[in-house]
């Protein structure tokens, strides 16, 4: 791999990578069972540089901000490289957000360029507030012939002539603005520097190396912090290849492993569980004697790999299982949310290492990772090289808020010094997660200090962000909470959101109100939906500026009501 200590920016490192391995494959794009494209590093460079030049011809210069909103595909990486080459700051936006949220974050980030997939652009142009969009240049990918692009240009035609100028950036310069959440009025734009990414890349590739010939299967969108690191920067700075699958459908994910001889893959717990379910179904269909043999082999593998993984041995003991994954799989990275220990153990017993960890955008990507020495399904692993983790104000059991310090830590939230000061204290990032460290240095997560949930799909959901969907509800006031924030439970699995309703004097909770609540709830993306409601008998406590005192309200509810007695299914 490249010696990343010698580089000051992602753009410079990627530029050298393209020169170093010109004939190696760097990108394969597949959709269902079709292969759409395949590029070597040389071809990648030949495709990206004309785009960089086109951006520069359109006035984009060093320090300028460019947003990408795209599903998982090659054009994402080509566009990102062109932006870095031109010295730009990348704003990767989650394509699953609504068009309204896209507009809000484009405005907040002050992006001057937007590169967007056509169906998403169509949604943006049809949204109230589109006329106020201040992005100067919009490049739209995959637009059908003849459609009105509402002032945008076609990405495929954005090819400038002549060499673009490479614009160098410094270690401390902003590389990306990544929104960890907060579209509901106070966007949390994590400013990540080139140093943050280079340091993180060195730490991760020290544990999980890439090299030419390695194939990484990418199913998460590249705006996801994990995929950006292990599905772009990591493999590219090592001459490896990234296989983009443009569908998340389990049947095509399964067949991609053997087809492309995948080495690594990142996924969120929900996808991991789906793979587990698929395997278990196949095991259950086996004739009884074969199932018995399989169970014995799994038990034997478990015993022989108790102290450390032995990939070669596991592949020999359980060839059918490993061949179903292509025979060359070294590890699955799971992140974005807490993975169920029983699922991790299931895969480990088959000889498939699932590297579970813990991370947050504010800390680069990963903070801890399981090192398999030995495998510990119940923890989120040990701190990565260069990461300091400590527990703030531990209780007698050693449980307290997890704090992190490292060179991968973001310096600030974009344009929000107040939130930055609350989050980074004396150089330590206060994560808002509760945990403890055992004597062997493994971190355990047991809950959250903050009012938020993380779904199995890896989405952070802040209750404040979804309150807009309930505005106008016929009640006196309402407030959304993470149930665990009101009634703390020692778990970060199966977290739920609830709405607290304060009715008008004499108002009854009618069927019409319940129906309105349920209808609005159904209109939300599945990961943002409420699980139940609570009727609260008194007015909410408020600050002098009339903001709800959420912590105080949560405390009062927790004291007066039992969790089980008030949760009513919506």
């Amino acid at each position: 791999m490249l010696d990343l200590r010698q580089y000051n920016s992602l753009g410079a490192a990627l530029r050298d990578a393209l020169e170093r391995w010109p004939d190696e494959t760097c990108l394969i794009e597949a959709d269902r069972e079709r292969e759409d494209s395949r590029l070597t590093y040389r071809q990648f460079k030949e495709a990206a540089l004309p785009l960089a030049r086109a951006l520069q011809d359109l006035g984009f210069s060093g320090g300028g901000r460019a947003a990408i909103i795209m599903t998982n595909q090659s054009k994402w990486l080509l566009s990102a490289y062109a932006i870095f080459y031109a010295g730009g700051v990348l704003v990767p936006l989650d394509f699953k957000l609504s068009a309204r949220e896209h507009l809000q974050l484009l405005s907040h980030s002050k992006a001057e360029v937007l590169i967007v997939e056509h169906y998403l652009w169509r949604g943006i142009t049809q949204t109230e507030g589109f006329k106020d969009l201040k992005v100067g240049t919009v490049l739209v990918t995959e637009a059908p012939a003849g459609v009105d692009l509402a002032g945008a240009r076609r990405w495929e035609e954005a090819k400038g002539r002549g060499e673009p100028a490479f614009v160098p950036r410094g270690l401390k310069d902003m590389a990306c603005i990544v929104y960890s959440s907060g579209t509901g009025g106070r966007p949390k734009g994590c400013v990540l520097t080139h140093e943050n990414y280079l340091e993180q890349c060195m730490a991760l590739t020290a544990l999980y190396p890439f090299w030419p010939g390695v194939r990484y299967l990418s199913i998460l969108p590249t705006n996801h912090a994990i995929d950006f690191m292990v599905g772009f920067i990591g493999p590219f700075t090592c001459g490896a290849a990234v296989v983009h699958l443009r569908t998340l459908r389990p049947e095509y994910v399964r067949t991609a492993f053997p087809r492309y001889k995948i080495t690594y893959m990142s996924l969120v717990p929900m996808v991991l569980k789906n793979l587990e379910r698929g395997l278990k179904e196949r095991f259950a269909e086996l004739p009884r004697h074969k199932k018995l043999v399989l169970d014995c082999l799994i038990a034997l593998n478990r015993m022989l790999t108790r102290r450390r993984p032995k990939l070669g041995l596991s592949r020999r003991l359980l060839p059918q299982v490993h061949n179903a994954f292509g025979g060359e799989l070294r590890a699955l990275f799971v992140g974005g949310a807490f993975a169920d220990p029983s699922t991790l153990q299931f895969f480990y017993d088959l000889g498939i290492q699932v590297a579970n960890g813990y991370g947050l955008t504010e800390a680069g990507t990963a903070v801890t990772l399981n090192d398999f020495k030995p495998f510990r399904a119940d923890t989120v692993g040990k701190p990565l090289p260069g990461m300091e983790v400590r527990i703030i104000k531990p209780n007698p059991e050693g449980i307290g808020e997890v704090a992190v310090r490292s060179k991968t830590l973001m310096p600030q939230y974009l344009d929000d010094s107040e939130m930055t000061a609350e989050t980074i204290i004396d150089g330590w990032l206060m994560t808002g997660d509760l945990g403890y460290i055992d004597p062997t240095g493994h971190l355990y997560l047991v809950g959250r200090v903050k009012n938020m949930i993380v779904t199995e799909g890896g989405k952070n959901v802040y209750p404040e962000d979804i309150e807009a969907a309930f505005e106008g509800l016929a009640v006196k006031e309402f407030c959304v909470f993470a149930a665990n924030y009101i009634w703390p439970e020692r778990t970060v699995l199966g977290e739920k959101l609830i709405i607290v309703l304060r009715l008008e004097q004499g108002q009854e909770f009618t069927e019409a109100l319940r129906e309105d609540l349920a209808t609005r709830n159904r209109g939300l993306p599945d990961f943002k939906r409420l699980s139940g409601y609570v009727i609260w008998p008194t007015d909410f406590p408020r600050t002098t500026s009339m903001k709800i005192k959420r912590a105080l309200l949560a405390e009062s509810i927790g004291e007066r009501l039992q969790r089980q007695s008030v949760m009513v299914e919506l």
Partner: protein
Amino acid sequence: MRRTLKQTIDEILSLAATHFKVPKEQLTPEDDFFKKLGIDSLQALELLTRLENHFQVELPDYEMQGVTDFRTLAERIQTRL
């Protein structure tokens, strides 16, 4: 002959009932299929593949974004028939 929306809905309900092993009589077009079938978004995508094969159309994953009930799903499919 082109299917009507009603026919499309009916066929979707039949396929969903078979795939997820629930009695078809328990399903209605307005049902939130995540809740009614107790499935996650990946299982909903699995259903989408079944529907693609049945209706002989191709639906990008994003067509499922924000869709939670059988009727809306049928409308999305109907536009491509």
